[in-house]
């Protein structure tokens, strides 16, 4: 990094009480944005550089201690490819943006309809009929402009998946329905990156982390969508599954997920959580 970037960051650092105790140097949102614009960089690059200098972006201060400064740098320098911007995808995107993943690619060719409003975080009465990719782009800019977010308004298929995943560190399966999940799992394996997957029907759901070549939920579940159609997708379950998927994404990027090669089976009605070796 050029010295001028480091001196610009150092010049605006302010002492502040840290959640870990004591005082530390911090940098504000507006200073990150100003330096990023002046140096023609994305905000996440400035934030990562600041963290390497021991200067904490205020917006990530409450990620400490659970996400260390070194892990936060890893996240800011990571690229995530998320397929689906609906129920799971909308909640996941919100968490990943706030967590501070540096680059996020999203894809969804769908538009919002009224039946999405019960659960899809990106939907609102004002954007019925509007593209999910468009709503995601607006939301990303609103929540965290430091993140490089790019959304494709397309339904990915066997042909377009490899290019979409290429160059990313991890793939996220936030698809609705079972039809494309196997293709995505195979595409992630072929590109050589881990896949975080999750799905639900009614009060029941699961989360899995699939390393390239491993058996994954998509190998087991087939393509029959009857359960989801009969039981629906309540918001409390969607958000819970999305949250666990986000946690496993963060862990896979920064250390290791303990869910590799396994499925966490969840039932929120009976409050049962069981990790199954598949």
């Amino acid at each position, binding site marked *: 990094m050029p010295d001028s970037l480091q001196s610009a960051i150092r010049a605006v650092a302010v002492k502040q009480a840290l959640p870990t105790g004591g005082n530390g140097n911090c940098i504000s949102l507006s200073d990150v944005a100003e330096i990023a614009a002046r140096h023609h960089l994305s905000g996440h690059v400035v934030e990562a550089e600041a963290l390497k200098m021991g200067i904490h972006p205020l917006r990530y201060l409450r990620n400490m201690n659970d996400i260390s400064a070194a892990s936060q740098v890893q996240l800011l320098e990571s690229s995530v490819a998320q397929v689906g911007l609906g129920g799971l995808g909308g909640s996941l995107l919100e968490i990943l943006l706030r967590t501070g993943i540096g680059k996020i690619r999203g894809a969804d060719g769908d538009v919002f309809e009224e039946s999405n409003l019960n659960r899809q975080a990106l939907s609102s009465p004002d954007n019925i009929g509007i593209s999910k990719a468009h709503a995601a782009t607006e939301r990303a800019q609103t929540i965290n402009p430091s993140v490089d977010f790019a959304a494709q308004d397309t339904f990915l298929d066997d042909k377009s998946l490899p290019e979409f995943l290429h160059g990313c560190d991890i793939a996220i399966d936030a698809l609705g*329905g079972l039809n494309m999940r196997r293709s995505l799992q195979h595409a992630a394996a072929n590109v050589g990156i881990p896949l975080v997957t999750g799905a639900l029907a*009614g009060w029941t759901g*699961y989360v899995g982390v699939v390393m390239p070549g491993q058996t994954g939920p998509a190998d087991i*579940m087939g393509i029959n969508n*009857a*359960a989801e159609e009969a039981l629906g997708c309540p918001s409390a379950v969607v958000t819970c599954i999305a949250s666990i998927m986000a946690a496993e994404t963060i862990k896979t990027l920064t250390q290791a997920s303990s869910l590799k090669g396994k499925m966490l*089976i969840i039932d929120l009605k009976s409050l049962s959580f*069981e990790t*199954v*070796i598949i």
Partner: protein
Amino acid sequence: MGIEIKCFATLARFLPENGDDYPLAKGETVKSLVDALGIPEDEIALIFINSCRAYLESELADGDRVGLFPPVGGG
């Protein structure tokens, strides 16, 4: 002591009242259990016994915890 049965999502309707302590017949397999409960085999995607994936032909033993899970893919 019998076995504990968990039926998830659309399979919940097949869970017997004594699913917490279901008596085990001699030589019982997952297939004979599923038949006894009246669950169509094609409605089951994932079977697990004591937190490990199992199959229709897997044998059951006293104290086992059996999970029966349908195809689930909503988001």
